[in-house]
């Protein structure tokens, strides 16, 4: 099990090696990547803050829960912090297990849990301003950005 919060670049290949197992027929690797727009606004870059020791604790708990729940052979969860440019990888979630369906289900479950409960925060920086995003993107437009709240 590979768990890490780091300010160094993340590698899909390292995660793939970390979950390799002769009993695994399926490996699924998810990369969360900084995109050039969010909610219709051009993004310059992102800055990630974290509570690293607690984040690693939560990531490990999620990985252990997923391993039991989906019968994983291997699991890696890596989160980057600091300034990230467009196209850089902020999150890597890799799993290995017997068959493909479980690998996809387990991977998505882990990514959702990471976004729900791991103490990491992102600040969006635009050409003309910046803002800490509060709450997971999955809430989408249900949650207005902090600047739009009363």
């Amino acid at each position, binding site marked *: 099990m590979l768990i890490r919060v780091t300010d160094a670049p993340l590698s899909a290949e390292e995660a793939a090696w970390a979950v390799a197992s002769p009993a695994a027929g399926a490996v699924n690797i998810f990369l969360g990547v900084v995109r050039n727009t969010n909610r219709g606004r051009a993004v310059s870059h992102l800055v990630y*803050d974290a509570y690293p020791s607690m984040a690693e604790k939560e990531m490990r708990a999620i990985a252990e829960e997923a391993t039991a729940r989906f019968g994983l052979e291997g699991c890696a969860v890596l989160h980057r912090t600091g300034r990230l440019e467009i196209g850089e990888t902020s*999150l890597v979630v890799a799993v290995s297990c017997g068959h493909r369906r479980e690998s996809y289900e387990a991977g998505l479950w882990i990514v959702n849990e990471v976004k729900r409960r791991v103490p990491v925060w992102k600040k969006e920086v635009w050409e003309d301003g910046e803002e800490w995003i509060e709450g997971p993107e999955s809430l989408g437009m249900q949650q207005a950005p902090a600047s739009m709240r009363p």
Partner: protein
Amino acid sequence: MLLFASLAERAGTRRLEVPVGEGETVRDIRDRVVARFPQLAPAVPTLMYALNEEYAREDAAVAAGSTLALIPPVSGG
């Protein structure tokens, strides 16, 4: 007490030493910090808390020497 993200920016610090009285809870400590940094008050309704790196409720007791963290809604990934 640990502060992150928007809270750290608003308070101008990521770490505070806060005295803890006997029988005090997370809520008591938080209120003491918000009294000193009123710019944190708007964030309180959405805050969560971690005591020694575990999520904790507002009414959890805080022992002296504990690490309390204010956790705004997370947005990692």
